[in-house]
Structure formats: structure tokens, C-alpha cells
């Protein structure tokens, strides 16, 4: 048996609009787009030109710094245009997909367990599936030249309104199994899985985990961020300076599995459409790069909403005209909160969510909230202490680490554990912050700084 770990510090934000477990496929839009900005620190160079016919799985752009990293088209069709911004920076590559059938670039079908690590790695690179493998520290696309200490897959998501990953991978259990086998080879046997222990994830059929040594299956209980892969790594085998751990999202394990079982790069994703502005929250199957309006379309029940790719804590602000990113698993739509509130800081606040008990909402601990995007106050100097520690289940002093980052003190950052953290792990700290400090931004700056200077 792997470790059984109880996370005590954290918080589950209960929001209205969790997705009902039914899944329906969305028709393909008239245009899809690939955005280099979805891939962190990617310097794109385009390989296709407008008017060119391409196959699904054919590379569209590659990274100038690491030429073997390429992003492939999820559809076959005709390249419509390359949208450029300031300084000719590539914003999007738009492709008009084939209507009838998708033509794929075919790869041999193989049992991943029987392939050598080198061949497997090459296959992932050639097919563009590699970009689904990310590394810690820094949260970038993994460097194929590294040999990771281990690969981690967190099989549940504990974020607000998060999709049930058991339900998602349950759509294609064989592909999930094949994907895990591939990762097992890639990790030289050091593949670790994090599962929900309490309550056990009823959606996840654990028979798909056959072949994973039981001592590498770890069970976590407790509130968010128990499902964050960074938290799990911290509790199982913390990252030291110089070490690299790769992480893969279960949905992306499916893409890897498909590559080996079907011999094709298929970028279908099961997206949970959630949030209090959605009329009937549920799951949809769509393609990476598809328009968000295909998903939200007539399914919203309010006008003045914010569409977020991801969850309310770590997601990216999006819009109906935007395109689904390659890493999105959830789209959340919540009301914008740009209305001033008269003496709002003085009211009893039965419907205001706060981890402190300064509003009377604490009398109803099971209330489900309809939160909007209001900041509930302005940014101030740091005053309240001990708040961040309550929601960060790591052996790390968050405030001191943040101060070290602000001071650009590399030695101190390393001592205080910068290599173990990612923005998402500090999202709850940002949520609770009384002084409304943008914590995730500081963490991102720190990781960026230490990557370039350290």
C-alpha cells in the first residue's frame, strides 16, 4: 500500500452550479484555433501557411528554444490564418476543420508496456502529445532530456466545482490504462498516483489501475488543495533543489493512451461546464481549440458573467469568442460583481462567504454560495497573520517565502521551499487574504525569476 495522508489545512469553497454527471458531445465549430499563449514560456515558430491542407496530428508550430517540442493540430482541414499581435507575436493559428471526417496522421498501434523508454519518448515528441507532460518545479512543459525522479498523476480534483475525474476517465477506461502504462515506462517504474480516500471516489473504477504497484497508489483525504498534485508530491517525496518531477493530468493521460491504442493524436476533452450562471451544468465532449461559445452558447442564464477556463481559484479569464485551451478541463461561469454595495463591510452578511467568522454566514456551515467576482475591499499592506498557513497544507512558511520572492532573495527562496510550490497551491492563500494581495502573481514572479537567475 502507498501512503495514506490526511490533509488538515485547506478549505472547500462550496459554490452553486456543480456539473451533473451526464456527458454529451458538441458539434465541431467552423473554426478552431491554437494559441501559443496556452503553453507557458513557449516561443512559437509556425510550420504551416494559410491555405495549406493539414492532417490532425500534424505539427502547427514548434518552440524556437526547444525545437523538438511541437504543438499539433487537433483537426484536419485548411489553415485559415495566422493571427499576429504587436511585434508580429503569434496570437493564434486558425484552422477550418473538415466537415465530414477527420483525416489523421497515423502512427502504429502499440502496447506501450512493450516499448522501450527511448522509443516511447520519441513517439510522444513526434505526435505532439509531449506537451501534456509538465514538470515541477516551474510548471512548464517537461524537458525530454531530463530523467525525472518520478511522475505524478493526481486522480482527483478538489477545487471548487471541479469535474469528477473518475467520471471523465471512466468514459475511456482502456485509454486511461494504456496511458498509465506509457507513463510507467517513461518514469522507469516511478509512477505515483494520488487518489481520493475520504470519501472514496465512487466514479473511479480502480480496476484500471492494474499494473501500478500498490505502494505507488497514495490516498488523500481532507479539503482542497488535497487534490493538487503539488501538495501530493510534497507529502510523498518532496522536490529538492535540482530534482525534477513530471506531472500529468488524468485527462491528458487519456490522450497519451489514445495515441498508443488508436495510433492517433485525438485531443478530445471532457469539459465540465459549471458555475451559478450556467442553466444546466453538465459535462461536454469537445476538442481542444474549439470556440468557447460552442460550449456556453445558449446555456447561460445571466448576461453579465465572467467565463473562466478552469476553476474560480486558478482559471484564466476567457470569453465566448475565445478558444478552449489544451489544458482546460472545466469552464466556470460566475456573475461579475462590479456593483458597489452600501456599507457592505458593516452588514451582518448572512450570504457572504468568509473563512473568518466576521460575517454571520458561519452560522450556516453547509450553505452553498453564489459568489461573484467582487474583491470585497481594496488592496492593503499585509496585516493579518496566520491566515495563509491555515489553507496551505505544506511544511512551508508562506508569508516568509512570499517576502523572499518580493525581495528577490534567491538563497532565501530556496531555503524556504520555492521548488515545491506552484501558483495553484497558493490560490487559497490569495482567496482568504484580508489585504487582497495577489499572491499567485507573486509566486509566478518568483518561479520565473529563479528559473532565469537561479
Amino acid at each position: 500500500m502507498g501512503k495514506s495522508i490526511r490533509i488538515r489545512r485547506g478549505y472547500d469553497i462550496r459554490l452553486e452550479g456543480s456539473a451533473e454527471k451526464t456527458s454529451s458531445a458538441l458539434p465541431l465549430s467552423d473554426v478552431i484555433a491554437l494559441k501559443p499563449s496556452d503553453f507557458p514560456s513557449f516561443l512559437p515558430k509556425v510550420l504551416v501557411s494559410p491555405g495549406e491542407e493539414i492532417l490532425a496530428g500534424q505539427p502547427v508550430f514548434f518552440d524556437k528554444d526547444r525545437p523538438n517540442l511541437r504543438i499539433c493540430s487537433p483537426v484536419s482541414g485548411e489553415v485559415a490564418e495566422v493571427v499576429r499581435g504587436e511585434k508580429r507575436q503569434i496570437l493564434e493559428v486558425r484552422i477550418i476543420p473538415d466537415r465530414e471526417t477527420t483525416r489523421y496522421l497515423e502512427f502504429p498501434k502499440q502496447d506501450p508496456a512493450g516499448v522501450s523508454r527511448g522509443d516511447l519518448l520519441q513517439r510522444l515528441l513526434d505526435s505532439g502529445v509531449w506537451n501534456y507532460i509538465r514538470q515541477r518545479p516551474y510548471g512548464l512543459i517537461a524537458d525530454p532530456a531530463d530523467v525525472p525522479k518520478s511522475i505524478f498523476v493526481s486522480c482527483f480534483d478538489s477545487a471548487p466545482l471541479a469535474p469528477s475525474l473518475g467520471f471523465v476517465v471512466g468514459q475511456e477506461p482502456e485509454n486511461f490504462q494504456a496511458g498509465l502504462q506509457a507513463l510507467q515506462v517513461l518514469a522507469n517504474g516511478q509512477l505515483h498516483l494520488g487518489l481520493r480516500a475520504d470519501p472514496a471516489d465512487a466514479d473511479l473504477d480502480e480496476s484500471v489501475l492494474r499494473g501500478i504497484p500498490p505502494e505507488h497508489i497514495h490516498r488523500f483525504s481532507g479539503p482542497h488543495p488535497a487534490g493538487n498534485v503539488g501538495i501530493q508530491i510534497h507529502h510523498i517525496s518532496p522536490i529538492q533543489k535540482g530534482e525534477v518531477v513530471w506531472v500529468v493530468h488524468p485527462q491528458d493521460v487519456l490522450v497519451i493512451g489514445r495515441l498508443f491504442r488508436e495510433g492517433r493524436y485525438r485531443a478530445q476533452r471532457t469539459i465540465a461546464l459549471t458555475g451559478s450562471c450556467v442553466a444546466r451544468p453538465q459535462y461536454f465532449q469537445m476538442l481542444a481549440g474549439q470556440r468557447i461559445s460552442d460550449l456556453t452558447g445558449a446555456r447561460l442564464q445571466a448576461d453579465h458573467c465572467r467565463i473562466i477556463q478552469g476553476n474560480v481559484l486558478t482559471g484564466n479569464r476567457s470569453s465566448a469568442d475565445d478558444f478552449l485551451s489544451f489544458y482546460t478541463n472545466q469552464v466556470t461561469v460566475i456573475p461579475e460583481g462590479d456593483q458597489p454595495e452600501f456599507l457592505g463591510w458593516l452588514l451582518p452578511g448572512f450570504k457572504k462567504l468568509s473563512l473568518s467568522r466576521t460575517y454571520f454566514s458561519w452560522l450556516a456551515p453547509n450553505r452553498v454560495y453564489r459568489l461573484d467576482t467582487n474583491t470585497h475591499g481594496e488592496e492593503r499592506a499585509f496585516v493579518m497573520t496566520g491566515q495563509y498557513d491555515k489553507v496551505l497544507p505544506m511544511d512551508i512558511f508562506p508569508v516568509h517565502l512570499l517576502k523572499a520572492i518580493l525581495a528577490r532573495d534567491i538563497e532565501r527562496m530556496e531555503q524556504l521551499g520555492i521548488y515545491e510550490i506552484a501558483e495553484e497551491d497558493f490560490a487559497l492563500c490569495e482567496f482568504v487574504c484580508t489585504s487582497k494581495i495577489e499572491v499567485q502573481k507573486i509566486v509566478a514572479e518568483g518561479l520565473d525569476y529563479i528559473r532565469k537567475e537561479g
Partner: protein
Amino acid sequence: MKFLQRILASVKPNFEKGGRFEKFHPAFEALETFLFVPGQTTAHGVHVRDAMDLKRTMMTVIIALVPTLLFGMWNVGYQHHLAYGMDASLMDNFWFGCWKVLPIIVVSYAAGLGVEFVFSILRGHPVSEGYLVTGLLIPLTLPVTVPLWMVALAAIFCTLLGKEIFGGTGMNFMNPALLARVFLFFAFPAYMSGDIWTDLSPEAGQAIVDGYSGATNLVAFDANYHALPSAGDMFWGFEQGSIGETSTAACLIGALILILSGVGSWQVIVSCFAGALLMGLLLNGMAPADVPNHAMHTPAYYHWLMGGFAFGAVYMATDPVTAAQTERGKWIYGLLIGAFTVVLRVFNPAYPEGMMLSILLLNVFAPLIDHIVVEQHIKKRLNRA
């Protein structure tokens, strides 16, 4: 409320960049955000935010101060009427005290907030909410007989030198309200100790009762601790003292509010009380047997009840900006405050009110305590490998 919103919206352009009163933008903003929680939305990072902000935090502390304030007002009247040997009803006592205390509060807020606004306008930073609490804490730590100009001076001093020169709320290293008190304590000692604790303004047709003594408990305590009021009186607060500090019971209600709401650190409050008790017990054990009146014989729990201990532990030591910031640091910080207070009280008759001094001292040491805790943490992390 639409009406108010419209007025604010109509004058707002004057205070924006390029407007006629551009300079006064912080002042306008303070008023606007006081009336309306702004419709500002999250930009990057999290999309939803906890409803608590600094205004709410400070408001909660003020609510926690209300029991001490109300009791203090009543006690001012009660002590006054006691000195004249008069029978007065509960409300008589309260109104008398209210009438005496309100001007001190008004002056404290006016002077301190004045400095805050001037500074904000000069430096162009938003007016922070910290003074909402400081402005009430200052009067509660003063005797009711304090001249109003001294209150103003203390408020200005602490806001200017205790806070603004460091960059405002969140940047100061000593508790501003205590700084105000300590300033008065050393600058005007005659007004801060001795026969000052009861309002002795003449009552028509009444004379002060014979044998009335205005000496404070802590002075009595150094001479002969047996002369102290009963533990019950000290707990409930039927004694002379600064406006807000006499009642340990009222402070404990405040502590309950602070701890329940999560605004005050329970670690600091509990460790302060524990520190005082432990040091009290230690001194009891070491007390000279042949001097039965020696202060070291004072029952340890008396230190909880005497003077401003409870008030300091609940409202002053818990100030998150000036206290230790790490979990373990908070325990050390509180224990030392409690222990040091008792040591000062017992061994140094010149400064009977040890709480004020020991909190300020530990404010200065808090960063050092945190530093040690963080270094330990780093060492532990290194050994983990």
C-alpha cells in the same frame, strides 16, 4: 442609496487624475469606500475573494471593544459617585461616564484621523483602516481625568512617529495605541499616575468622603498586596483605573469575540495568560518566607486581574502587525509578555504598569523571535533530505 451613489459619482471626476481636487483623491476615496464597498472585480489570479477585508477586520475589533467601553463608562460614573458617597442608579452612573468619556474618544479620532488623512494626501496612498481601532484603544488606556489636549497630542504622536513614518498601517513595528500611552506616561507622569483615576469634578452639595484614596491598585500592590481590592471586584472591574481596562470580565467577552471571529490570535491571548501565571507561580515559590507582605507572595492569578493585564493581552498583544507572525513565534511572544509583566510588576515599583512596557518590548523583539523560528524551520527542511 442610489441617491448617495449619484452624488458621489457626480463629484468623483473632480478628484480623479486631472481633476480640480486631484490631490485630495485619497480623502475622497476613503469616504467613498467607507460608504460603499467598491464594485471592484478580481483582475488576475483568483476570481472570487473572501468577503473579509481590513475594514471588516477593524470593525470586528471595535465590536470586541464595546463591552470594555460600556463598562468603562459605567465605572467612571460609579467611581465618581462612590467618592462622593452618593447613591446613583445604573443609568446615572453610565450617563455620567459617557459624558466624560465621549469627548476623549472624539478628540482621539479627530486628531489621529486628521494626521492619517494629511499623510495620505501628501504621500498619495490610500487611507488605511488601522486607525479605526487605534482611535478607540487610546482613550480606553487613559485615565478619565486626562486633559483633552494631551489626548490629541498622544494621538498625533503615535500616528506620526508610530506608524506613518514607517509607511502606514502594516509597516509599523510597535503598537501605536500603546505608543500613545507610553508617550503620555513618560512625558506627563503627573497626569498618568497618582491621584488621577477618578473623576473628582465637584458635585453640588457633596464632599469627598473621608478616607477616600485615589491610589491605584498597582501602587498599593507594591507597598502591601493585602491592600488590594478583592479578587471579585478586580475581576468584574469595580475598581479605579484607566477607562477601559478595569474589568477583566469585559475583556474576556472581547477575547471571546476576537477568537470566535478569527480576528485575534488565540495563541497570543492564551500564552500571555499562561506566561503571567507561570511566572507568578515561580515567584510564589521563591518568595521570602519572612516578609509576608512581599509582592512575590501575591497569588499568581491576581496578575490576571490587576491593572491592564487582561486588556493588554486581549487587545494590544494580539495586534497582528506588531506581534510575532509565525505560529510558534506567537506562543513565545505571548509567554514572554506575560512573564515579563509579572517580573516588572513585582520587582520594579517605579513602573507599576508592567503590561504596557512588556508588550512594547516584545513588539521590538517579535521580529527576532520570528527570525529564530524561521531559521529552525529552514534547518528542519534541510534535515528532511
